[in-house]
């Protein structure tokens, strides 16, 4: 039986050649379907599912429904489906676990026709159905089952992508939360220490502190400009320096061409924090923190360097591969977010060695669509 079908499908039988869709047509429509379904299950993707089902299953008519109503119809007028489609849809939805498609008779203006209905599943729940009007028989029902499973698995993929985006967002939130505890405590202690001796400076620092918090709690968009990010770094550094005093100096060299470039929010500040926390803080004597933003044609590079104690490359490797997650989470998160925003070639590079200081460099494209 299978052999007969495959023969028909590939158009070997001469009598059928004209009406059979070619392999290319089937693959093309399946590909379109896969792409469309990626954006979720809606009116538009329902139409493409119907179109692909018509081609792939060689059907006279196809209807695609959500769990309650008809979304798309090809081959016959949407009204011709009548109330039967709704009844059959709820029947499929109620059955939940469906092994084989349901077959029912549909009376249209031109007469009776056989229709098979199969579910579209998402995370175990029926979110829609496909109704196919065709000569039911042979392997047709098995084909329909396969087709509906294909649609379901594509939807699953779409959800996976969605949840990956959520995960990245959660990561950003976690990163924000992670900046705070150390930093909030340190800043407040530093300010507290100044309240009596230097009230003016304490007041300024509280203002800066408030500004830093406001900037880091913003939720509108994930992307900011280098200029904005540097403002955040400035506030951060002022607070750190209040605590450290003259333990380190800052040297800046910022190409003005880099200022309007967009980058994920909180991409530079964690690098600066890392340089202070893991480089300069443990260093004897005063050190230098260097922030350089350079113009490089269609891209820019931003590097944050310190002449502190450096990081043991082996230990760093372990931290970055997730083994020792406690110490360099900030850098790791920046790396992840740069890659997920601009693509894998935009990861960060780290140059370091024991007692050799650390330099972290990120690359950013001047323009990124979307």
């Amino acid at each position, binding site marked *: 039986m299978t052999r007969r079908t495959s023969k028909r499908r590939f158009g070997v039988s001469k009598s059928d050649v004209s009406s059979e869709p070619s392999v290319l047509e089937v693959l093309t429509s399946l590909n379109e379907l896969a792409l469309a379904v990626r954006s979720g299950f809606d009116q538009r993707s329902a139409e493409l599912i119907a179109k692909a089902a018509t081609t792939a299953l060689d059907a006279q008519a196809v209807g695609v429904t959500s769990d309650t109503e008809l979304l798309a119809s090809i081959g016959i007028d949407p009204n011709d489906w009548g109330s039967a489609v709704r009844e059959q849809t709820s029947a499929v939805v109620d059955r939940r676990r469906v092994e084989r498609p349901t077959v029912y008779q549909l009376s249209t203006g031109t007469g009776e026709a056989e229709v098979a209905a199969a579910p579209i599943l998402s995370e175990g729940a029926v979110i829609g159905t496909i109704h196919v009007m065709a000569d039911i028989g042979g392997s047709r029902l098995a084909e329909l089952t396969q087709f509906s499973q294909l649609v379901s698995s594509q939807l699953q993929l779409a959800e996976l992508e969605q949840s990956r985006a959520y995960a990245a967002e959660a990561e950003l939130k976690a990163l924000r939360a992670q900046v705070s505890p150390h930093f909030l405590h340190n800043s407040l202690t530093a300010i507290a220490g100044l309240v009596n001796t230097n009230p003016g400076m304490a007041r300024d620092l509280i203002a800066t502190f408030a500004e830093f918090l406001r900037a880091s709690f913003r939720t509108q968009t994930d992307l900011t400009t280098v200029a904005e990010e540097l403002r955040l770094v400035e506030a951060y550094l002022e607070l750190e320096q209040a605590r450290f005093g003259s333990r380190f100096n*800052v040297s800046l*060299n*910022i190409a003005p061409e880099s200022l309007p470039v967009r980058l994920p929010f909180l991409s530079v500040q964690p690098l600066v924090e890392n340089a202070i926390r893991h480089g300069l803080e443990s260093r004897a004597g005063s050190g230098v923190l260097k922030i350089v933003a350079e113009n490089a044609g269609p891209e820019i590079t931003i590097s944050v360097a310190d002449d502190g104690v450096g990081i043991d490359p082996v230990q760093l490797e372990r931290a970055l591969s997730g083994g020792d997650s406690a110490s360099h989470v900030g850098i790791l998160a920046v790396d992840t977010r740069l890659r997920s925003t601009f693509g894998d070639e935009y990861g960060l590079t780290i140059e370091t060695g024991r007692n050799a200081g650390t330099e972290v460099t990120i690359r950013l494209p001047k323009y990124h669509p979307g």
Partner: protein
Amino acid sequence: MIPIVAVGFVVVMTLVLGTTGLRYARTTSNFFVASRTVHPVWNAFAVCGEAMSAASYLGVPALIFVFGFEMLWPLVGWTIGFLLLSLFIAAPIRRFGSYTIPEFIEGRLDSPRLRQVVAIMVIVVSWFFFLAQLKGAGVVTRALLGTPYWVGVLAVGALVAMNLSAGGMRGITFVQGFQFFFIFLGILIPFAVMSTVWFRGDLDPIITNSAPVFLDETAVDYPNDVSIDLPNATKVDIDGSVGDQSGLVELSSGTHEVVGGSTITWPAGASAPHASTIGALTGTEWAQPLGDKGVGGGHPLYFSFAIVLANMFGLMGLPHIVVRFYTNPTGREARRTNLIVLALIAPYYAMLPLFGAASRVLSPGLLGAGTTDSATVSVGERLVDGTGGELITAVVSAGAAAAFLSTSSGLLIAMAGAVSHDLMSAGVRQFRVAVWLVAAASVLVALAVETTDINVLIGWSTSIAASSIAPLLVLGIWWTRLTSNGALAAIVVGGGASTAAVLSTMLGLVDSGWPLAILGTPAVWSVPLAFAIGIVVSLRDRETVSDLGYKFALMHVPDRFEPQP
């Protein structure tokens, strides 16, 4: 000696400022200053530094020198171009957020394939423009040091490539801003001196009823083989050879073949010979607009329209100018920058013609030597004797060096970016490799265009830009119905037709009459053709562009509202 020092100073400044950058802060209190965006005025200086190229600095005076008032049109076209840029392009393209033109087209029309096609057009347009800058470098170095043409071309090509690959873009906005001052002073100071000299009546009037004559006994260098037309028999001293003559001889009137490397000393009062490719004009003929001077195949009216169209649309589509607006933080600032540019560049353009006009009196020898492109840098020594003349030559040469260095950098960045970023989507290392490759290819070809006038090269560049990139920008920014197929058709047909027309004149397939006019200066038909093809194909195309409303809001809604997708 002084001019060499001045040029050396410009070169060193370019290297030092470019590599170190200027924004530097030692403490957090300087942070704000160090991360402040560039003020529109300084940005305008930088745009001017980039836009004032060897084409205007050397090329336009040379054209006016040879052909007269007709050649004021390129300046008019460029000025209109900057106005159109302000009105229609600068702000929207900045708000869109794209850096290069190919990126804008890809973002606007969702077509990665189109981005590659546009990148190729960017390379073609910039490449002709770059050749002109290298030619200018060769000419100026020769006039200054007496070195062969190739020395200057090679030196500047290598210098610019080395500077860029060693990180010379770091402070490019500052460098180009400084270069602007050198360029502007290089024109302003000699202009002031020349005006004073003429107003005091110390020199002959420029417009007379005779062809140019040598005021004093003048030694003219002939770096290449050239055939000259001599109107009267003249006693000359030939160091080298003319035909088989040399030494003190009387050259008969008529055509003579001068061997490259010769120097001929012409007596005072002698009529200046012209290269056979240039028609001799009396002052009145020279000063007559739309006269029959053999320009544009002898169809001056057509030619005038073609030149204005090519230059105004061409300027809108010059890739190295459009990317400069990115440094502005907002669309509004981009437009302000461009208006300041207009205010700075208009007086610059207005001063240039005097250099061409004065050269007819001061250095008519260049007309026969085939070196009219060095007219600007020759003015100083002819105008004032001794140290004064040398000082003028120093400022002019420093300005010229600044002009071709800044523009060359911008063009090389645009081309290397198109190769590494748009065609290969690679990173900084590949960008540096691309800089060297593009520079090497350009230097090789620039060596072969020694006898092609700078403005012929620029004319080709602007004609192609006007018929390919400019229509795409205008339609892309202002017309919602443009589709990627329409844009592709416009750029292929417009860019292809104008490139083919340019190549046909470049290879000498047409040399006179209407064919030369139509193919040599194609903008009159190729610009409307590109627009028409783009519109017709888009209207017939059923494909639509996604997120059209958002994209147009992004480009056209004032900066203070941030459109969300």
